[in-house]
């Protein structure tokens, strides 16, 4: 693994993907918390025409130019979503759907229009669709690192206010914080996080980089700070792993590979994380069900004792099964625990210990 990082291309690719993973993971935490997960999808699709327009206007493919175009278009897309929701009765989901598909369609028109021009200077713009880690250059990396760093720094500077925005915007407004401005700031930071990932992951799948690390981190902690840090870490791991895999193996497109890595992290988190994990939940559920079954059999035996007084009288498993179902295995377990005694082949009775337990 270490010698991988001696390779110039790989180092660039891995560092770039790490930068994008950290930024989109940390900022995605807020998007997921605020139920704006799919805003990331709309922003990344909306960025496509920005890339094309930036190229058409300047004729340059410098990363800063394209990223600026993408960011502006992404921001316009977000504003469009917000104002559609505010000024019409069209709902949030439809507004997102319209903006993402229409902006993307317009971007396609521009891209195909550019591609059919005679000169070949446009080559490479289409890597924004699915991303291409291998194509990352040092200058891309610098742009990504600086922009991502600025976004993260800003996020830390207004951390407290953003926390307020995420959990209780009304309270924040009543304290006199400019919640609307903060909302716009947070969205702009999200736009930045998304556009720096476009070259590597592509517009189609960038949404996953916003949502998945945050959703995974959410399983491990209830604290916002820790969640954002974990999401950043998960994003970085998935970014590095995916881009290294895709650069090493043949015909393994970068964006999808990174997305599958991050999805794997989500699945593992859903299954095993903390107290919320599905596996633990299943284990707990089984244990609880078993305990309930044992208690039910004990209680039934106690009831039978009351109805048939006289010491040393046993009852058959069949009778108990009628009362609460599947009693035999429970009886055997209770016998192991010394709470039930087997008097004859199919004669079960409470021991003293079992009686105490049943009356408890």
């Amino acid at each position, binding site marked *: 693994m270490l010698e991988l990082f001696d390779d110039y291309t790989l180092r660039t690719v891995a560092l770039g993907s790490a930068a994008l993973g950290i930024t989109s993971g940390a900022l995605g935490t807020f998007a997921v918390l605020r139920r*704006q997960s799919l805003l990331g999808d709309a922003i990344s699709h909306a960025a496509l025409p920005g890339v094309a327009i930036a190229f058409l206007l300047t004729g340059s493919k410098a990363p800063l130019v394209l990223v600026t175009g993408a960011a502006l278009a992404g921001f316009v897309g977000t504003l469009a979503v917000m104002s*559609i929701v505010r000024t019409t009765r069209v709902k949030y989901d439809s507004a997102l759907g319209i903006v993402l*598909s229409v902006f993307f*369609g317009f971007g396609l028109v521009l*891209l195909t229009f550019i591609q059919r021009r005679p000169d070949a200077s446009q080559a490479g713009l289409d890597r924004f669709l699915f991303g291409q880690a291998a194509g990352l250059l040092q200058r891309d990396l610098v742009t990504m690192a600086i922009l991502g760093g600025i976004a993260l720094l800003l996020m830390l500077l207004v951390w407290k206010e953003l926390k307020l925005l995420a959990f209780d915007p009304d309270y924040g407004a009543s304290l006199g914080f400019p919640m609307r401005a903060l909302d716009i700031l947070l969205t702009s930071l999200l736009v930045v996080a998304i556009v720096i990932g476009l070259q590597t992951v592509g517009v189609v799948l960038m949404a996953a980089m916003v949502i998945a690390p945050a*959703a995974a981190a959410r399983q491990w902690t209830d604290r916002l700070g820790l969640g954002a840090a974990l999401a950043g870490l998960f994003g970085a791991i998935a970014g590095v792993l995916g881009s290294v895999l895709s650069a090493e193996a043949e015909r393994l497109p970068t964006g999808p590979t990174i997305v599958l890595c991050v999805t794997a992290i989500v699945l593992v988190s859903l299954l095993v994380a903390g107290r919320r994990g599905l596996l633990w939940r299943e284990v707990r559920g089984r244990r609880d069900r078993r305990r309930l079954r044992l208690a039910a059999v004990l209680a039934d035996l106690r009831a039978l004792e009351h109805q048939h007084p006289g010491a040393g009288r046993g009852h058959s498993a069949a009778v108990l099964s009628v009362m609460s179902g599947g009693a035999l295995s429970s009886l055997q377990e209770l016998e192991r625990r010394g709470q039930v005694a087997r008097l004859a082949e199919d004669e079960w009775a409470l021991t003293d210990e079992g009686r105490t337990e049943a009356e408890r």
Partner: protein
Amino acid sequence: MTSGQIEIQLIAIVVAVACALPGTFLVLRRLALVSDAISHSILLGIVLGFFVVGNVTSPLLLVGAAIVGLLTVVLVQMLERTGLVREDAAIGLVFPALFSIGVILISRYADGVHLDVDAVLLGELAFAPFDRIEFWGWDWGPTALVVMSVILALNVTAIAVFWKELKLSTFDPALAIALGFTPALVQYGLMSLVSLTAVGAFDAVGSILVVALMIAPPATAYLLTDSLPRMLVIAAGVGAASGLAGYWLAYALDASIAGSMATMTGVAFTLAWLLAPDRGLVAAARRRARQKLEFAQTMLAIHLANHEGKPEAAEESRIEHLDRHLRWQPDFAERIVRLAERRGLVRAEGQVLELTQAGRELAADALVR
């Protein structure tokens, strides 16, 4: 126009109408983004179907892809039901993963075999007329046209047959349950239609356009009408018009037809957003302006009625004093007085205003209310 061009436009219209019909219910049920999820994940279905069947033209492929589309919905619901992630995040987790698997499978095992990620994602309507269905010695037309016509017919039939179920479960799911319908069944039926339509359209126009055609025309219609049947008709019309306009835009720019169609649905929505008769931004702005003027005239009438017959009346009802009493700019006061005069609410004699009978009634009415 060549016959190829006519066929492309026909396909555009049929696809647009076929998408708009189930799309209308998605928009009304706030499930718009399900179309995004389905249209992406059916790529995986098409690839898997391709591995099983071995060619890309078999109708079995459509069925397989539609099933994967349904599977997406089921997965999203399962994920949501764990309580660990919310619905929006669940959608955003499921479809990128399925789509990624599809893309990787294509680029590793099916590259260059007609299945090509760009074509699938972006669609290439321009080539549709070359792929034709011929049997019994008869040319039945482009495959895409035939397939989409069948799907369109299916959509129309399903919506007509299950009209009351769809309508009820869309607008009042609780009542639907109380009356003994099963909204969940209706939901899955609708999702099957969406999935099948998306698969068919996907082949002709690509997955992103599917989203545009399913959401934007119904949303446009939603701004224009309050009636479900009219909404369906308008959505279909808007979709078809966007399809045609998109084709000619693409023709003029020599650019992607699917992209142009999506762009035109956006243009249609923007037009409705601005100009819709009741809900458009322009109509709303004009209504606000008119209400402001009407309110000002009422204020003027109340002001005059308040002081009518009192000693200060001569002073209070002078036009040049309105800026002091009602805090109106002089031009605005002038304008309101002129409007009120035209409506017969006041008479102006020189600078002094006097209420007419109509003006008195307006003031009294406004005060009572």
